[in-house]
Structure formats: C-alpha cells, structure tokens
C-alpha cells in the first residue's frame, strides 16, 4: 500500500490545519500514520483512495472533515484552447487518452516532488505498473498546439528525459533506465505510441518516457497533462491530477480530444470531466446497513465531512441525492457511499450491538479427532509441535530414502529451495525439529496431528518421534498400541518395506484391512541425513481411518 511522504509545512499552509491535529485524526478517514519526522509525515493510505496520494488531496480531505470546507469541492474548468487528435493507428496499442491544461501555477521543489510522487503512486494504484494508466506532465513553453497521439516505428529517434542526445525508441527500451523497466509493456507492439506537437516535437512516448523538451522545473507556469492507457481509470487519474493542481491555485483548462476512428457523433470529447456522479440512496438503506438510526441532517453532515454533497429529495420515505466527486475511484456501489456516511459519522460513535439471533456452536469433526489424539499422545509423554507444511523434495523424499510419489502439490515459483512443495507426510518435519534440537536434553518425544495435501486434497495425519540412546522398535510398538487402544481402534500389523525404516524393525498398521500407517526404527541412513546422533523411533498414521 502506498505510503505518502507529506511535507508538513506545505500541508499546514495548504490546509490551514495544525499538523498535530492532522496526525491525530487522519487515521479516522482511513489511513495510518507510519512515521513523523521533523519536517515530514509518512502516511499510508488504502489502495482504493488514490485521491489522497498527495499533499493536496490530504489537505482537501482534512478541510472537509474538520468542517472548514465541507461538501463537494467544485473546480472551474475554462473552455478548451488546445486540441489533440487520436490517430487510428494508436487504437490497437494504447487506445484511451485523457488530457488537460493547467495554467497559473507556481512550483516549489516540494510541490514538484508532490506532483511526481502522485504520478508514481497513481501508476501503481490505478495503472497497475503503468499498464492501465500512465501519466505525463509537460511544461508548455516549448511546444505548439495542436497535438497528435499516434504511433512511430521503433527506429524513430528523439531526446528522452534525462538525456541530451537523440535515441531511437528501440535504444530507449534497451538503454534508458525507464525504458528497460517498462519495456515489457510494449513488447508485443510493432509501432510504439507517441505524442507530438504541431512541429513534430515529441512530448511523450507513453507509457515509457517523456521527451526532454517539456521537462517541468520550478519556473514552469503552465502544464499540459496527458494520461494514456487501456481502461476508464485513465479519466479518474486525470481528474485526480488536475484536482490536486487546482488545490494549489492552478486554473484548469479543458482540452478538445478528436478521435479519428470514432463515428462523427462521438469523435469530439472535452476533458477533463469533473461532473460529479450521482447516487440516489434511501435513508432506510443507510440505517439498515449500518444498524442504527440517523437523522437526515446527520446523513447530510456526515457525507459533507467526506467531501460529498447530499440533498434530501424525498421525505417519506426519506431519500438523498448524493453527488460524488469525480476524483473518487472507489465508489462502485451505493454501499461505498454508505461506508462514507459511517466514516463521517465516526466509527467511535456507532452504537455497537450483539446479534440477537440464536445459533448453537458446533465443533468440526477434524478438531474433535485432533483433540482426542493429542490427549492420547500427551498422556504417553509426547509434546506437541506445529511444523511448517511447505517443504522440499530433499527433506521429504531424499532424506527419508523414499521414492518421490505422484500425489504431491508443487508451487510454481518457490521462494527458496527449502519450500517447493506441500508435505504429504508429517514425519520428515518432526525429524527436522529433532535436528534443530540436537543440543537439547534427551529423551525428546514430539508429535503432531496436522494436515497434509495428498492429490491436492487435505488429509489429517498423526505422527510422532522419540529420540534417545535406547530407543527401539518395542518402545514404538507399545506407543502405537496404546495410542490405537485409547482411540478405540482395532488394528493389525504386517511386515513393511518402508525404506525410511530399518528392515526387520518396521511394521505397517492396518485397520479394517486397509493400510493406515507405519512405525518402527528410523533407518540409520535417514538419521545421518538429518544429522541425528541417536536412535529415533517413530510412527505416522492417517487419522481419517482411525477416527
């Protein structure tokens, strides 16, 4: 989740709210203060609220929350002076484009950093690593409208950001830091998307890099913003960026976007579109969902604290028309608005209550059998352990001298070679625990009742091991006999050829004619593989056939 570093002075100036008040309360709108430094505050916001990923966004939300500027924030948009055309060619590679102009800006190094951070966080949260959304901001000084969004072949060259020499687009993808990082996003394209001005100057090679010509500096006064991508999140991202700049005094100006491939009626769009979305919500729905009564005023005020405008449009039954800011990415359903009623009202003020419905509690049979088996084993002097279920072929088969079986579930991308598969038996994990406890006093007797995955299905098993200088087959026979007697299981034993055990000192356990387990003295080859220095005896059995 994104952690936003906020310049606390900048935030105080912008919002007019004392920084301590913000630190103390910001978590009540859905955030966590991670760190407070002399000049900065690190705040973690949720992935559904990208509108808060900037000082400007935090300031706007806090001003509404503390009642200094409640309700829907309206931004004026001046009519378009600039046009950009989406060429047919680009429709197959990166079809969605949103643009805006913001004038009357004055940047400081802090506000440039905030803008750059916002871009990067939006690339993550809405853009999925620039795939769905990528944003370019451009100083307008050196470029001339109208602009074109088109494609170019890979050998087309321009001077990218942070460079002084021309590079071809292929070279950018191979050598430029950003090119290398994001090359995978354009690898299937034969021609690459590009935005140029009237004179053929390159603004941007989305989603990779801007041209150096439009670099934003502290002297930048006017910005052209392009947002390209593959989905409707492009427009949300554009709205978030322009609204943030407007919070800083920028004047938003629309851009006329002409889509060559659309039919005549739809070919012209004026962006950004900051018109609020509208939801009609009945008061009863709010009260039912949240579980307590609120007055209409309380609903309206709670929503105003969260930056919404709500008006009572009918009284009996009461219903509200709620205006949702165009920069909010998280309102998919009216329940998302109801949540904001709850947040605005304050979770602390909600009267918590207990459901009054009657239900009878019920244990799962697997827990019942685990508890009974554990009691039996503890009474026999065995202590419980809870090893990992992720293991490796080396531990699970090779160390155990057992052949690899075909009922194993492997993970595709293991983190380490120690965790490549889910166990199908428990014994190897117990032997690993003994190996970790070589320096501890003997005897050591441990067991586990736990789940393994056989053919991708869970199975409950029990296993136990005992290590000491005189551990022998007879001891384990007696333990198995006692365990099965305690669990009221009639069993037979038969000769076994399990290679994990010493031949002649191993037996298979049969219940109702079916093999359920094995016990005996672990093979010296197994003991040395686990680097154990004393005799070890053990057993393992399938619980489903015992209980």
């Amino acid at each position, binding site marked *: 989740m994104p952690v936003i570093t906020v310049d606390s002075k900048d935030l105080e100036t912008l919002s007019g709210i004392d920084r301590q008040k913000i630190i103390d309360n910001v978590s*009540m*709108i*859905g955030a*966590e203060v991670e760190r407070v430094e002399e000049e900065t505050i690190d705040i973690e916001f*949720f*992935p559904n*609220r990208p509108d808060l990923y900037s000082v400007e966004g935090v300031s706007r939300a806090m001003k509404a929350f503390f009642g200094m500027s409640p309700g829907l924030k309206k931004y004026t948009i001046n009519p378009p002076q600039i046009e950009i055309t989406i060429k047919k060619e680009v429709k197959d590679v990166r079809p969605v484009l949103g643009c805006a102009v913001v004038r009357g800006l004055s940047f400081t190094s802090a506000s440039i950093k905030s803008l750059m951070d916002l871009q990067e966080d939006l690339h993550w949260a809405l853009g999925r690593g620039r795939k*769905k959304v990528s944003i370019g901001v451009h100083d307008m000084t050196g470029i001339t409208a109208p602009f074109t969004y088109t494609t170019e072949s890979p050998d087309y060259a321009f001077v990218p950001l942070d460079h002084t020499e021309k590079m071809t687009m292929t070279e950018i993808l191979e050598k430029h830091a950003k090119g290398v990082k994001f090359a995978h996003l354009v690898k299937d394209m034969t021609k690459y998307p590009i935005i140029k001005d009237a004179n053929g100057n390159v603004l941007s090679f989305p989603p990779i890099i801007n041209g150096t010509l439009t670099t934003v500096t502290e002297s930048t006064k006017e910005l052209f913003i392009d947002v390209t991508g593959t*989905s409707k999140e492009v427009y949300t991202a554009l709205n978030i960026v322009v609204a943030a700049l407007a919070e800083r005094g920028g004047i938003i100006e629309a851009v006329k976007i002409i889509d060559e491939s659309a039919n005549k009626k739809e070919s012209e769009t004026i962006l950004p579109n900051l018109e609020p979305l509208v939801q009609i919500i009945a008061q009863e729905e709010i009260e039912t*969902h*949240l*579980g*307590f009564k609120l007055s209409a005023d309380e609903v309206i005020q709670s929503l105003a604290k969260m930056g919404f405008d709500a008006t009572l449009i009918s009284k009996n039954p009461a219903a509200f028309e709620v205006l949702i800011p165009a920069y909010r990415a998280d309102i*998919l*359903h009216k*329940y998302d608005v*109801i*949540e904001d009623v709850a*947040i605005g009202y304050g*979770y*602390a003020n909600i*009267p*918590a*209550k*207990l*459901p009054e*419905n009657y*239900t009878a509690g*019920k*244990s*799962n049979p697997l*827990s019942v059998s685990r*508890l009974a088996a*554990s009691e039996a084993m*503890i009474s026999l*002097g065995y*202590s*419980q*352990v*809870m090893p*990992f*279920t*992720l293991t490796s072929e080396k531990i699970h088969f090779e160390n155990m001298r057992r052949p690899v079986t075909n009922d194993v*579930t*492997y*993970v*595709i*991308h293991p*983190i380490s070679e120690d*965790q490549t598969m889910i166990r199908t038996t428990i014994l190897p994990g117990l032997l690993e*625990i003994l190996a970790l*406890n070589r320096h*501890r006093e003997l005897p*050591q007797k*441990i067991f586990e009742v736990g*789940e393994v*995955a056989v053919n*991708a*299905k*869970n199975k409950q098993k029990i296993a136990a091991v005992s290590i000491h200088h005189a551990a022998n087959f007879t001891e384990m026979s007696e333990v198995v006999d006692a365990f099965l007697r305690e669990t009221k299981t009639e069993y037979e034993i038969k000769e076994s050829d399990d290679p994990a055990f010493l031949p002649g000192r191993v037996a298979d356990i049969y219940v109702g004619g079916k093999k359920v387990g094995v016990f005996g003295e672990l093979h010296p080859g197994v003991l040395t593989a686990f680097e154990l220095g004393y005799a070890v005896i053990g057993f393992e059995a399938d619980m489903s056939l015992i209980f």
Partner: protein
Amino acid sequence: MTDYDLTNNEKKVLLALNELETAELKDIVEISDLNGDASMQAAFLLEEKGLAKVDEESFELYGLTEEGKEYAETGLPERQIIDSIDGETPLEDLRASFSPQLVGIATGWLLKKKWARIDDGVLIPSGSAPKGQDEDVLSDLYENSLENNTFDPVFELPAELASDKIISDLLKRKLLEKEEYTTRKIIITDQGKAYASEGIEITEEIAQITPELLKSGDWENKYYRPYKIQKPLKPMYGAKSHPYQRLIDQMRQIFLEMGFTEIKGDIIQSSFWNFDALFQPQDHPAREMQDTFHLDSRSENPDKYVDKIRAVHENGGETGSCGWGGRWSSEIAEKNVLRTHTTSVTVKYLADNPVGPVKAFCIDRAYRRETIDPTHTPEFEQLEGVVMDKDMSFADLLGCLKEFYHRMGFEEVRFRPGYFPYTEPSVEPEVWIDGLGWVELGGAGVFRKEVTTPLGITEPVLAWGLGVSRVAMLKLGLKDLRELYQSDIDWLRKSEIGKGI
C-alpha cells in the same frame, strides 16, 4: 542442652564414635550396622553440627612392576655388569654376553652412580660399587610381595628406607608402581562426647510407608522422618500441548461459546474461490506471482456461479455496482493457488449454505509468498468468523468484534476505517496493549453485494479475520515467528501452561 535434631543414622554413628573415639569408616560400619555410604554421610552431618571431625589422610602405596620384579631377582642392569667384570672391558664384549639393551640401560646408570667410566669404548670400573638404597627398596618390596603373595601396589615404603629422589628415579625407570589412597579418620569432638554422655536414644523412624506397615497397623505412633521442605529441586517438565495450539484452542473455544460452527477446507483452492468470488480484480497486485503461491494445476469453475461472477467483475451484474470494467477471464479463475486467506473457505461455505442464520468460523493455515524472517513466514494461521442473517448490520459487526476481543482478554477496543476489496464498510479493529499502545489486530467488514449476490446470498454477511500468529507473538512474548513452527524443545518444556491465558 542443645537439641541437635539428629537422625537415627547420626545417632548410631555418634554412639559408635563414643566407643571408638577415633575410627576408620570400616570400624563404624561394623558397630553402627549402617552401610559405608550412610555412615560416611552421617559422619559429615555430625561434623557440620560440631559433634565429630572428619580427618582426611592420603598416603602412597607401592609395588613392583614386571621389570622391577625381574631386577629384584637378577639385580639391576648396572649391578649385573659391574659384578661380571674384573677390570677394563670393551663395551663390545659386554654386548656380546649381555643384551645390547641391557648394556645400554646399564652404562647410563654406571656413569651416574660413578661405578665406572667409559674411555674410547672401554668400560673402566672405579673399584667401588656400594649397594644403593634403590636396591634396598627393590629387595624390600620383593620380600613383602612374596610374603603377602601379591605384586599389587599395596605396600608402604618406610620413610627411612629411601629418599624421594630414589623413589622418583625408580618410578621413572618404571620399576615401581604407585597408587595413592585417601583414608578418613573420624574423631569424636569434646562436644560430641558431652552429648553422647547424656545418653542417646534411638527411636525407630520411618522413611518410606510400606504395605507391611499399613497392613500390620504398626503405622500408628511411629516417627516419620521429616523432609527438608525447602531443599532446591531439579525442575521436572511434562509432555504438553504447544503453547500456540493452546492459544488457537482458546480462540476456538470463544467462537464455540458464541454459537459458531467450526469449518475446515482445503489448503489448495482455485483462484475462483480465493479471489474472484471475493470480488478481487484479476489484475490486483496481491494475485501476482510475487505475492501468491501459484500451482501448476487448475480446478473447474463452478457452473452455477461462473456467469454471475463474470458479470459482477465486468459490469456489476445484478448488484447495482459498476464492477471493475475490463474483461473477466474464466481461465485465470481456474488457476489453483495455496489459499492466501481462510476467507476462501468461509465464502465457499456461505455459498453452500446461503440461508441464515449462519455463524461460522475457521482457524487454519494460510500461505503467502513471503521470505522467512523474524516477523514473516510463508505460512501462518488465520482466524475467520462470519455471521449471516437478515437484519445484520455494521453495528452488529462492531458488537461481535468487541465481544470477541474482550473474550480474548483485550479490554480496550477501537475501530478505524479499513479497506478490503470484498467488504463495505470495512474496519480495522485496534486493541490497547500496555507498552505498545493501539495495535491493529485484524480486519473486518460487511461483505459487498458484489460478493454475496452472485452466490445467491440475500442476507447481510458480517466477516472478520485476524492474524493469529501476531496475537501469539504478543501473548507468548516471542520475537521471532519461526519459534512457533521450528520450536526449541527447551522452550516448549519451559513454557508454562498458564501463560497467555
């Protein structure tokens, strides 16, 4: 007079000493009728009380080695040589009549004892070869050994017979064998005598209750030797449940008491149940390879729900939501994963039991692709509770959470807004822990319509989850999560059953 509170054994030893004044252990054993160990132990206890004194004396006993025995019979090599010659004799000749080794040994000692000198390979006797103390020692020990019929080192060497130097030379020549012995002499003190003179009465005392004692009725009016109740003990450790299991079972118990049904499910789940049914968008970062353990297998999507899940993701379906947009891939949903949360188990259970009231919980292992370190393990326990019924609300959820955390022993609970893709409203409960402040302990919310509607659920579902290992670290005072799974047996032995309860 002083009451020395003597045990019967001490009394018996003191009585023996009173007779003997100074005694060796064996003498006491004879009189007291106690064995050696018991007598000695009692003697030491008497010494502690000032009634006796134990003097230790160590001394050395000697015997002849095989070689020493041989020389006692034939004479030391240097004696053999000097006795065999009349005047100057070349060593060459001697080597011919004696063995070269013997000549070798002899020449050194002949020179050292100044019985002869060697000039240009010729031995020149000095004319004087008096019998030395070393020879006296050999013959004395030889005679003693023959007399006592043993060549073991059991003989004392009288001090006047030989100097230390002579004995150490003989030991170095490996002709003598030495053993050191310690004997103890036990002497009664004046205090002891005074006490004994007043008369010591031995009353019968019982160490161990026996069947005979009980059957015979003799147990009445007996003296039962008291134990020193403050004596330091060797700790004893019994077999027990894992402390983490105990904590898990405590949570289990809370849910059962609150009327919940315990459910279980498979570790291996399809993405459909782990993500898609929970309205997790298919391009959500948590679904990617670096966060989730993907498997090389697939499960068929359930026909009953697949179209509805597609619709809800793409456009919200019948839920009134706008959905995530884009195209939902049935193929991505088929991919199996190791469950990243137990919510996959609870949501499946709700789909199978879509009519309330349902209260269910699940405490089981979940898997995330985390590198192992003190606070992360790729597998960990998760707790999950759901309540489904008509009229359930967010306020009921907060009530359930408060009740649950209170029963867990966390008295102060507060709620912060949270975010999970499948709940709305979402909440992060925090509990107050002294020394740490407010600690976030899980997440909760009301299931979104986008989750419930496609599964045919019409009633509100309250859900909460908790990372159990986090609570375990707090309650068991652990610094490293691995300790739960790769446990130190010493820690298991020593961790108290009462801890964390």
